[in-house]
């Protein structure tokens, strides 16, 4: 225990470096990135799901419609798509943290 604790400062540094890198590549989206993601959801997801997210060729993405689904499961759908339907995988364009942020924001109805 003591031994592992002695590593803590070093770990913190590593964690911080990792976190900084992740903030760019894979971490919680920055405020600017959040704005860009919200715009992507409205404008590009909106081409199938409706700009107001009330549905189109794709299903509605409003909080009521998503109430039965976990955010993590929705993030997986965003990342991997739904085979056999037009829902495409966004992995490669969105990180896992970004997909999760979008899923949570959709469930909360806070996509501006």
């Amino acid at each position: 225990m003591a031994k592992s604790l002695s590593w803590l400062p070093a770990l913190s540094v590593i964690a911080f470096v990792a976190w900084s890198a992740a903030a760019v590549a894979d971490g919680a989206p920055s405020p600017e990135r959040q704005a860009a993601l919200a715009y992507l959801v409205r404008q590009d997801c909106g081409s199938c799901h409706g700009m107001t997210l009330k549905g189109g060729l794709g299903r509605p993405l409003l909080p009521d419609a998503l109430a039965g689904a976990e955010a993590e499961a929705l993030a997986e759908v965003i990342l991997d798509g739904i085979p056999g339907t037009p829902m495409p995988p966004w992995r490669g364009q969105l990180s896992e943290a970004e997909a999760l942020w979008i899923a949570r924001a959709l469930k909360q109805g806070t996509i501006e």
Partner: protein
Amino acid sequence: MIRSRSIFALVLLVLGLPVGLDAEELRGTGDLGIVVERASGSLQIVDTSARRSLGRVEGLGDLSHASAVFSPDQRFAYVFGRDGGLTKVDLLTRSIAKRIVQAGNSIGGAISDDGLLIAVSNYEPGGVRVFDAATLEPVADIPADYGPSGARSKTVGLVDAPGRRFVFTLYDGGEIWIADFSGGDAPQVTKHRDIGALPYDALITGDGRHYIAGLFGEDGLAHLDLWAEPPKVERILDGYGRGEEKLPVYKMPHLEGWARAGDRFILPAVGRHELLALDAASLQEHGRVQVHGQPVFAVARPDGRQVWVNFAHPRNDTVQVVDVPSLEVIHAFEPGPAVLHLEFTPRGHEVWISVRDADKVEVYDTRTFEKLAELPMAKPSGIFFAARAQRLGL
């Protein structure tokens, strides 16, 4: 100034004169058009000869994916909103003549060949509703029920066909229906079943003969020959993807606007960085064109010599021009982020291009490719010129 103008307009209104034009402004509408500002629920009425905006019309609701058709006299635009709104807009007075919300969720519409009926394609409730073009009073309701359980399908690819007919496709049901209003306001509906999986859009050729539905769920297209007796659906371009896994599709291609270009049809392939060229007579594959990204619109210049193409996210900042005889990309340029739509002037000398994220519409010479004008617009999407009134299927 604006105030005095609106008082002037009010005086005209009281006098029973048309608002927005006086004797000096007396004009036709053949070179007018509309640009959809989708985020703000507004339109700009544009003059394509002067390459300028004449003004804005507001209050059209949710205009994401909005489209429009025009009355035969080219005075009125019928605008189909996503929220089920059907708005009749007077291009001369630049005002809303009539507006209804006829469904919960809609996708485009059509006007009958006699100009008397407006049909709207609905996702919710799935089916087609038909209205009187003058009053927007309801004429007919055609629920898109399919299968043994009577499930209701979203409808797509609604077009007009000669003989007071509308043709449309059931996205969930995989059927093509013909609603024939030649006998009056109660349509005769003919259903073609099992046309293929997930037809996502359709078009009709300018001669009213070929109705073609793109299939998202299968590697091919469904073709309905309306000249055949009786009309019959056949598969064309079967296996054009050659069984290869298609790329993820970030925006569904549109088929409306792909047109006969000389002796060929050029259309966007789904999930591929390709255009497909079909022989117009045999409907067999004639060739392919490798392009910059997944095509969304592939629109033939009215003379058919060129096809202009825009692309899906994330390659949607670019437009390419294909020379039809050689099937070569002869020009490419980047108008800006999110090129959503393009519309040619009726004789094809100029093209208008909406660049959503740059909040502008650009006008280009189609021979020199020189930019001729830039018009500020708020998140512009669809561009529709009144000359569509004289073309079948648009």
